[in-house]
């Protein structure tokens, strides 16, 4: 093992198909977690905004979920849902909730009250007010939450390797079991690259969706 090179590119080139497969799996696991997490978070955030009394228990509950270590959560789930994608997703989704709910609520609450008053004063109903004014204006804060959730989830997906999923975490686990550094480095590096790439994509999405925040020549 001492004589073996630390990182073997030839192994990587021999396994490009497998790497691609695991990267796709990683992205799918992340995408499902974010999508489902966002829908649930939006619903809970709306409830929290509409009925402010429910907000503290919502954040408390999602906060507890967030505090439970993922490995422990997966361990709870395996006896019930087995070594399945469902186990992985339940865990991954539950970690997105706190971040997303907090940012959605903060984003909506951060909308300038004058804008809200002006909109009401011009005859906006509450649904249009939310969809056309509050939601777009909260978008930068919401997307900041999505970015954090995305990067965090991509890291967490690697752990699901322990329950038979894992995306690129598969390489890390296999590398550990075989004492094969190349796979550990590859899995870790791919996870970081995916996180950075997805983050960049989301920054671009934010720019496209919120043109009004761009810095153009501002008068005065």
């Amino acid at each position, binding site marked *: 093992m001492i004589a073996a090179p630390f990182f073997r590119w030839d192994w990587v080139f021999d396994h490009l198909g497998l790497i691609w497969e695991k990267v796709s799996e990683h992205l799918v696991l992340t995408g499902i977690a974010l999508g489902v997490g966002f829908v649930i978070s939006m619903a809970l955030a709306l409830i929290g905004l509409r009925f402010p009394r429910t907000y503290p228990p919502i954040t408390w509950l999602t906060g507890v979920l967030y505090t439970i270590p993922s490995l422990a959560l997966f361990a709870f789930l395996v006896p019930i849902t087995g070594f399945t994608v469902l186990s992985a997703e339940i865990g991954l989704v539950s970690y997105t909730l706190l971040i997303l709910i907090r940012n959605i609520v903060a984003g909506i609450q951060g909308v*300038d009250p*004058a*804008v*809200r*008053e*002006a*909109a*009401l*004063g*011009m*005859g*906006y*109903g509450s649904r*249009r007010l939310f969809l056309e*004014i509050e939601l*777009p*204006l909260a978008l930068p804060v919401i997307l900041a939450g999505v970015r954090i959730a995305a990067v965090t989830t991509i890291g967490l997906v690697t752990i699901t390797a322990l329950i038979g999923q894992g995306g690129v975490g598969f390489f890390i686990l296999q590398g550990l079991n075989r004492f094969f550094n190349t796979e550990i480095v590859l899995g870790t590096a791919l996870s970081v690259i995916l996180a950075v790439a997805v983050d960049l994509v989301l920054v671009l999405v934010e720019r496209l969706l*919120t*043109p*009004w925040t761009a810095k*153009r*020549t*501002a*008068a*005065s």
Partner: protein
Amino acid sequence: MIRLENVTKVFPGGSGPAVHQLSLDVAEGEIVVLVGPSGCGKTTTLKMINRLVEPTSGRITVAGEDIMAIPAHELRRRVGYVIQQIGLFPHRTIAENIATVPRLLGWERTRIDDRVGELIRLVDLEPGMRNRYPRELSGGQRQRAGVARALAADPPVMLMDEPFGAVDPIVRGRLQDELLDLQRRVHKTIVFVTHDIDEAIKLGDRVAILNIGGIVEQYAPPAVILRDPANAFVKAFLGSHRGIKRLSLIPVGEVPLEDGPMVDRSATARDARACMDRYGVDWFGILDGKELVGWAWASDLDGDSLAHIDPKPFEARVSLDASLREALDTIITSRTRVAPVFDGGRFVGTITAEGISRELAK
């Protein structure tokens, strides 16, 4: 056009009614200013007219219709609303902002486009501003965009809540002038809230002075309020410069003008001296026919005729529709202590501090 009858608003948890049994009539096409100290319920009163605040009791009608009989969002689309913070939508361009109410009303796109263009011209924004976002505009431009947005669907009634409160005094003065100018063209019924008595006097056809709890202490044209304050509260609220404030309400044209120490170019030095003696001054104006060509000091006289005199131009001049306040300002800063008055380019007479003072004493 707008009528409030015994309107009362009690906020839950408030110590007393914010507005108590308030009645007020606003005629079509006039600007009514609600003014008073903070806590007098002026903003609450305003917001009850478009139902952003629901009255606890009493009746409010707009154009004869009880506002409680109209769904709130429909009422609000018919009533323009401008607030101090403007509340432009930061994620929409100026054109989109202005188009807000027409869009809510479901106008066709071409009609909206035309209307937006018209309004941008009306409030004197550059056409290039159309596709800018609000943050790219200056405070004054934003305020104009806010007014344009409120006017978009041509509502007969406009509610304005301290719209110029957040801009600096110079811009504020200009925006006030623009509003008056705009009003001459669009003839809206405007209810305007401010805490600034000078703004109220300048803008209001009628001014309602409100006391804590929404009690109307006086409701009259500003000139009347200044001349005959109804009670001690109004007097105190008007402050110590009532006379000066009145000046800004009276145009020069309402004061009898004097000829002043004017002599024709063809007159002799002796005529000029006699004229100066009559007015007790040491200068005289020189006319050429009906035209005022300038003035000269007594000490400039040399010999018998005025022919050799090079008249100094009147730097201070006021127009017939200027206020007495402007005239007085001109008088006290001029060396001749007199302001020549012009109607357009035509010299019509002079006005002096004594003349103004006589007018106020009437």
